[in-house]
């Protein structure tokens, strides 16, 4: 069984834990640097990206998180997590962890009153047009580099993508009872663990 960590500084943590456990993974809550040891993959959850970055800096977790990403273990970012993973953020001088070659637009779909849910087709998941994406003040991916695969789009905007061992989505897979996205990620972690063994 694989162990997936959830970065637990702020945001929807319990929901991710539930979805990961339902997908057959052990869950470890990550609040400090030393918690990053002994995990096979990491989820960077939704929350407020500004707040999460401040807390990451405060606890000197920035470098350890970047190092973790370099170890070759899979990372899955949702909503704010996607923003943290992007190389470039429109309107900001610098990205955060900068592990995925993509440019993102924060709150690209507007404020809370414009937030929505919509059925999507996500490449790599079984089924077509039946995955409910919950978008809350959500970002979108404006453009991606050559190594990044688009997994889902909505209104011609990229809302889920994968670059090797990095996975991200602009919507909240943890807010529904459909655990296919988490299942997909746990699959990636299981694959990766084989190569580490």
């Amino acid at each position, binding site marked *: 069984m694989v162990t997936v960590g959830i970065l637990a500084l702020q*945001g929807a943590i319990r929901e991710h834990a539930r979805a990961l456990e339902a997908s057959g993974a052990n869950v470890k809550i990550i609040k400090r640097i030393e918690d990053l040891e002994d995990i096979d993959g990491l989820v960077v959850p939704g929350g*407020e990206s500004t707040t999460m970055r401040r807390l990451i800096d405060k606890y000197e977790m920035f470098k350890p998180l970047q190092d973790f990403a370099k170890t070759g273990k899979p990372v899955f970012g949702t909503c704010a997590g996607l923003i943290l993973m992007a190389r470039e953020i429109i309107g900001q001088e610098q990205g955060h962890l900068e592990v995925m070659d993509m440019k993102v637009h924060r709150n690209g779909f507007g404020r809370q009153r414009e937030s929505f849910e919509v059925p999507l087709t996500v490449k790599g998941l079984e089924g077509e047009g039946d995955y409910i994406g*919950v978008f*809350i003040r959500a970002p979108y991916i404006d453009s991606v580099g050559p190594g990044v695969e688009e997994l889902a789009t909505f209104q011609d905007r990229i809302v889920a993508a994968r670059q090797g061992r990095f996975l991200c989505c602009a919507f909240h897979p943890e807010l529904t009872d459909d655990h296919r996205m988490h299942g997909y990620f746990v699959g990636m972690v299981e694959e990766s663990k084989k190569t580490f063994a």
Partner: protein
Amino acid sequence: MVQTGTDRVKRGMAEMQKGGVIMDVVNAEQAKIAEEAGAVAVMALERVPADIRAAGGVARMADPTIVEEVINAVSIPVMAKARIGHIVEARILEALGADYIDESEVLTPADEVFHLNKRDFTVPFVCGARDLGEATRRIGEGASMLRTKGEPGTGNIVEAVRHMRLIQSQVKKVVGMSEDELMTEAKNLGAPYEILLQIKREGRLPVVNFAAGGVASPADAALMMELGADGVFVGSGIFKSDNPEKFARAIVEATTHYQDYDLIAKLSKGLGTAMKGVEISSLQPSERMQDRGW
């Protein structure tokens, strides 16, 4: 089909705020300090509760200029308060683009009988509650987030503690009951039966429940987390303290690491004077904000 304003979208927004601190601000400058300190959202209002108490008279929705100024100043979500039952104030805040509306007892109620039908709105609402009956009535009306009422603007945590403990124990009681006892419990609490049933089946409240009303120190914030709050609202506590920047950062950290007592001890040092508190028993009945709404 694209759907806006669904329960998932409204409640989900509050889920993203969990473990965080929402701070009252009265202008763009304070909003930036709050964001910089790591607040997950700000509540834009004309006066913080302590000043509302001091000023007396009728407290209304903030001037739209303040709400707009705050929206333009920060990238985190902006909440704003409407009077209980004031449909039009709530509609105005929704039109301005506020991300969450607090139908709040801190303002003078516009309706002494009816709360807003919050299901009519696309924007989500947070409401105050003192017990599970009140909490579930608000959920029944469509509130997507709850907070304890506490006693706002007093800097005294005792009422927030009372409300949080009561709600938690009432939730536990409902979860432990058999389904055939629930209707009587609904009658006793004045609670919608369907929502009690949902609580029983899921083992918890269906929406996020923050602490509010009297949080004046990092230790207060950590205490409320310890008692089971999903996060903390800080009203007068921050900008009524000597050093708001430092105070705000300390409250955010104490909330994240509420069980790390070495850390909370460290960050509580040298914060200067917290806001001056008010003993609850010294309040006249008419000064008790928590008794507004039902």
